[in-house]
């Protein structure tokens, strides 16, 4: 189906189902129960899952396939966001021109940075991309303030021209369909939110995911994997690796731009921190954590990190009291004392520990965990391929 083989079609259908049903899957606990704290099925976080999913899928096309580790991809995310907000300021809140421009701007930006940085490889390449991104961040925060609105972040003001707005909506929309409109479904004790913005992002994420599958299975993808394993042989095979790596760099830059444009479309404000090295580092972590070079891994990694950032950081002492309240006081206080180090302001600690545990016990990232679980259940221990990573293209 769609030019995919049977296994990939199955995977794609699986991903479609999960994204379509995400509002149910993410909200497994009744809204008023103590466990509701762990529910992630509210619009903003679901949007973030898929947007950062796009970012990580794109990054994986570069890093997972070619092995070139860019530490500056946040620059493209930021550039995309700024471009999108400018379209809101100048034209209207319609997100179509904004997203198109953000992809184009990020693409052009990545052509320039990629062309220069790809003259080097290995850590030299990483540092070049880092340097470009940090320069972009520093300038966006200060001297480029007329373009970026600096510390505050670029946003739409009432006196912006918005030439095409007319009497259109005052919020970001897709030809009148407002991104923020949500409807809630109450089923017994459960409550589920269906948000237009989420589904819009989800559709684009599915397109992005589909494209990345096609790239993985294409001759181009094969060449990129060849670059990762042996560039010398590739050159002596008559192939010029530079255009291939540049193409991969620009494609992943455009994915980042798309993610940036979508972020601005869901929430029309673009802050300079989006370009900082920590943001670039985050997508690197997402990809490695999920499993670099696998199709699904980056999505998992993105979801994992965003979940911790948004859910664990919000668990505070009074929530803990709610959970452990039924226990005798001594035990309750002891448990809370232990637990509060890992939640709320301690969420970073949990994340750091999980990074370590995952990389120690699951060298292939979360995807390896998923594969192991699947193999355990199917009882097939000989199956070594991790979801297409080493699947021979010939089958």
């Amino acid at each position, binding site marked *: 189906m769609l030019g995919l083989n049977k296994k990939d079609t199955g995977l794609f259908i699986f991903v479609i189902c999960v994204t379509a049903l995400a509002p149910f899957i993410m909200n497994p606990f009744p809204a008023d129960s103590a466990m509701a704290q762990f529910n992630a099925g509210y619009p903003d976080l679901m949007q973030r899952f898929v947007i950062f999913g796009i970012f990580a899928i794109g990054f994986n096309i570069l890093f997972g396939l070619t092995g070139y580790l860019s530490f500056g991809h946040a620059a493209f995310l930021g550039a995309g966001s700024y471009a999108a907000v400018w379209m809101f300021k100048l034209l209207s809140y319609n997100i179509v021109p904004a997203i198109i421009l953000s992809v184009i701007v990020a693409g052009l930006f990545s052509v320039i940075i990629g062309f220069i940085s790809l003259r080097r490889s290995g850590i030299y390449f990483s540092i070049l991309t*880092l340097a470009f991104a940090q320069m972009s961040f520093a300038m966006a925060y*200060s*001297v480029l303030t007329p373009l970026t609105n600096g510390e505050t972040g670029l946003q739409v003001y009432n006196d912006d021209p918005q030439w095409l707005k007319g009497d259109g909506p005052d919020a970001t929309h897709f030809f009148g369909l407002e991104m923020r409109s949500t409807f809630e479904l109450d089923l017994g004790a459960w409550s589920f939110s269906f948000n237009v913005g989420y589904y819009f992002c989800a559709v684009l994420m599915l397109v992005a995911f589909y494209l990345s599958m096609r790239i993985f299975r294409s001759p181009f993808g094969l060449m990129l994997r060849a670059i990762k394993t042996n560039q010398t042989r590739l050159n002596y095979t008559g192939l010029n690796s530079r255009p291939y790596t540049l193409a991969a760099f620009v494609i992943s830059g455009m994915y980042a731009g798309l993610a940036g444009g979508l972020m601005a479309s869901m929430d029309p404000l673009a802050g300079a921190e989006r370009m900082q090295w920590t943001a670039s580092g985050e997508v690197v972590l997402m990809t*490695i*954590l999920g499993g670099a070079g696998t199709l699904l891994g980056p999505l998992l990694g993105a979801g994992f990190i965003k979940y911790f950032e948004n859910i664990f950081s919000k668990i505070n002492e009074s929530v803990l009291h709610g959970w452990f309240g039924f226990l005798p006081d001594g035990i309750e206080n002891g448990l809370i004392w232990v637990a509060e180090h890992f939640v709320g302001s301690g969420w970073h600690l949990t994340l750091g520990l999980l990074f*370590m545990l995952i990389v*120690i016990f699951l060298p292939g990232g979360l995807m390896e965990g998923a594969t192991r679980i699947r193999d355990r259940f199917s009882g097939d221990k000989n199956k070594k391929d991790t979801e297409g990573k080493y699947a021979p293209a010939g089958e």
Partner: protein
Amino acid sequence: MDAILLQILNGLDKGSAYALIALGLTLIFGTLGVVNFAHGALFMIGAFCAVTLQKILTISSVSIDPEKKDFLGNPMEVKTPYVESWFGEATGQLIINWSVPLAILFAIPVMLAVGYIMERGLIKHFYKRPHADQILVTFGLAIVIQEIVKHYYGANPIPTPAPDALRGSFDFGVLLGFDPNAVIYPLWRLVYFAFSALVIGGVFAFLQFTTFGMVVRAGMADRETVGLLGINIDRRFTLTFGIAAAVAGLAGVMYTPINSPNYHMGMDFLVLSFVVVVVGGMGSLPGAVLAGFLLGILESFAAMNEVKSFFEAIYLPSIDQIIIYLVAIIVLLTRPRGLMGRRGVMEE
């Protein structure tokens, strides 16, 4: 002229910190082949060794002084450090006053131990893993260390002053024949530079003149061969890591009077020190030191008003914000392996 001299001094000072951190980073990379994102955290642990010693020295006996009132109007608790009651007030205060230099003695065993535990407990298992995994695990470790420090010491900077005797400033210019007051420089910063030079010299001498150093250098040049020589490379790796940790830690201890330490100071230095290492050339110790001082000095020059306005005139405003990265790009484009890097190291 005096302004330039001042900035050179500033540059050497910043460069000292960069060079010390980069030295350990490149030592770990060159011998162990590990990309250590937790190296900034080691620097931070060093700084908090100074804080901890200061805390230990000021452990106090508490008595109530009914004369004084605290902020709630209750009788105030008066604390007398045990050191003062044991050694007499004057000596006690002197010891507390000198807590930062004393912390060097405290930090060396602590850092060696931290290095030993890190290497044996974690890093060892990652020698053969891809760099990406090393980055993930050391970054995770850095976060964990940071959070632990934050839990005990809070997020705000903690003042750790230099001893009174070294706190003032010093008319450096008079020595060189400038007018008085032209080149005034803080004493402690001069101490920091001298100390760094000593540590750097010590590390180089150690690597140059000991058998251990020879093995390490040979290992940096060709890891596989050294492994084949039947030398117990494991123990040496551990010690190398310990030395790198100690160097970063000492840099941290002595840095505390310059800037009050806080829990995220390691991350602030992490990216910069990677840039320094790469500009110097992966796997080159002299390169790391050279690049550290070079970037420090250039950064200081870029902060000069004259330089800033010059670059503004050629449409490069805020040159001081981007100078390090700009220099890194220029160096890497003109010298593919940094200033003194070798072919084939970390290029895959």
